[in-house]
């Protein structure tokens, strides 16, 4: 009997925790010229007409995708967990180039960024890569930013400098031209959980120590402020904040959205998001601003529209049942706001269009390929 229990041990352990394999990725949608581009949980990039919600093309990558596609010129770029960057044509989804052609540059989790015909990618091998957007040629790759350090955040580019936040509590500045490490860096006791966001010579970044940091760029390398100023927040600031008109809006894994004065770091207001049972639920996705309204989504599937001045908000109701979350799936992907609609890819591999003006779920389509 005991041997049977031991033999079942693998099954018991795996069923209790799951395996070390990633699941479906967190690729969010992006909109360009009336077409939505999004990575699916079954390893494809699809292009969907935003008016008709019909699929224009699909490109199978057969890798988990955590990055949100990014469009520049006539190409859409996506990084994969198998460690490759794909450039696909926006009209047909034909592969223009892939880097590296063979092998892997290390799992890509943070979405790439594009500036001056260069695509910058953080990799799990601890390096930042710069590729030519047209041909996919390697321009440079940085030295590893730490020993055995995975880079899962996106870099931020300002002028000719690239800023990268790391899990070991550093923000490094790299030359966007050569990838060389610059003298400027910032060091914190705890690691940084979110990608850096830069506004008016200030970096805003969330930390594992339950604080959001504002760090001056350039000669002033000290922390300008950290929020909350006294007791730490209830959890990590995982999602990148957004900054608008001197106010930083930061979603936290404690379920709250905080509005913070960019100048002083003082709290202006906070809004608590909950699940259907009224329990505070983590905000994993960054908030978006549209038509002077803030839109946030929490992990339980609830979507809220919030007045950015007062912090008063309302949940968008589920069309089928008022007591259910806005959508019937978890939300971990970045949101995309465009012309009155917010596009969300749920963990159920469906794409949702939320009409903000009407305050209702407008449509949803399945991204799962029909056999």
């Amino acid at each position, binding site marked *: 009997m005991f041997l049977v*229990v031991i033999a079942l041990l693998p099954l018991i352990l795996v069923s209790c925790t799951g395996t070390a394999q990633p699941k479906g990725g967190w690729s969010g949608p992006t909109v360009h010229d009336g077409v939505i581009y999004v990575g699916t949980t079954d390893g494809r990039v699809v292009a969907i007409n935003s008016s008709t919600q019909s699929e224009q093309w699909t490109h199978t990558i057969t890798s988990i995708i955590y990055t949100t596609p990014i469009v520049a010129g006539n190409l859409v770029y996506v990084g994969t967990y198998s460690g490759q960057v794909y450039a696909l044509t926006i009209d047909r989804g034909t592969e223009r180039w892939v880097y590296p052609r063979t092998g892997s540059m290390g799992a890509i989790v943070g979405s790439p960024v594009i500036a001056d015909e260069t695509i910058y990618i953080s990799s799990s091998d601890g390096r930042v890569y710069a590729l030519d957007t047209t041909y996919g040629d390697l321009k440079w790759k940085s030295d590893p930013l730490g020993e055995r350090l995975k880079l899962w955040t996106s870099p931020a580019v300002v002028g000719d400098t690239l800023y990268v936040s790391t899990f070991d509590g550093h923000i490094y500045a790299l030359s966007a031209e050569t990838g060389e490490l610059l003298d400027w860096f910032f060091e914190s*006791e705890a690691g940084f959980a979110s990608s850096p966001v830069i506004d008016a010579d200030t970096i805003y970044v969330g930390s594992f120590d339950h604080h959001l940091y504002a760090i001056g760029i350039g000669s002033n390398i000290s922390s300008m402020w950290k929020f909350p100023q006294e007791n730490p927040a209830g959890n990590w600031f995982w999602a990148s904040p957004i900054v608008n008109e001197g106010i930083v809006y930061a979603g936290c894994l404690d379920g709250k959205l905080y509005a913070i004065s960019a100048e002083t770091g003082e709290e202006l207001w906070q809004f608590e998001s909950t699940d259907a049972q009224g329990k505070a639920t983590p905000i994993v996705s960054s908030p978006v601003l549209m038509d002077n309204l803030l839109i946030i989504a929490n992990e339980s599937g609830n979507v809220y529209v919030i007045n950015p001045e007062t912090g008063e908000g309302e949940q968008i109701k589920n069309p089928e049942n008022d007591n259910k979350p806005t959508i019937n799936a978890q939300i971990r992907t970045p949101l995309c706001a465009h012309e009155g609609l917010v596009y969300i890819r749920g963990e159920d591999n469906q794409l949702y269009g939320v009409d903000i003006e009407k305050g209702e779920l407008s449509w949803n389509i399945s991204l799962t390929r029909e056999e």
Partner: protein
Amino acid sequence: MSPGDIWYLIIGNPVLNVLIALSHLLGGNFGLAIIVLTVIVRLITWPLNKRQLKSTKALQDMQPKLQELQKKYGKNQQKLQQEMMKLYKEAGVNPLGCLWPMLVQFPIWIALYQAIMRALATTPENLLDLAQRLYSWNIVSQAIPLNSQFLWLDLGSRGDFFLAIIVGGTMWVQQKMTQAPAIDPRQASTNNMMLLMMPLMFGFLTLMFPSGLALYWAVSNIIGIITQYFVTGGWGYLKFRSPFPSSSAKGK
């Protein structure tokens, strides 16, 4: 509250947070943290282990009496079993007692497996899930993320062949030290099978699971061998037979 929530509240999250806090206290060395946690677990389960070791010693001392019973009732298995159970009862010994400390450790194995997978955040999902399970201790938040390297091992990856041999070998030694020779041939056959199967199975599990968990097994076995040696006063039933013929046979 669901059974899963209760599990995490009582066992899963405490093990995870203690492990991460230990790692920070030990200079960010996650391997050392697992070793220290193993020692703590062995200390907590010491009363149970002590009882089991005393049972083992009592079984060793009872061997002459058991052999007498075998001679006396060898042909009547039912009677032999009855008399043996009577003898065990009189001596306050449970022949299956050695299994309990292992069964008690089952929840700890599961919690440790979960803790290793989550603490090392091998996937983005693991890292995000970790956020919901950490206490708001400074020591814990400053320890994230953890370094998975220890000696030649990546504690988040599957164990290698060498580690499997260490786990299997130490388990075999520990079992061999405690396993009294059975009187009943059927029991002897079962014992022999257990003596081989368990180390083989754990060696195989080492190749399947994160080496951090196998490190726990190996250290736990070594501590078991050491405590057994001192409590029972020697190597017990682990007898090394000389491969050479005895001196009396030399002249033949």
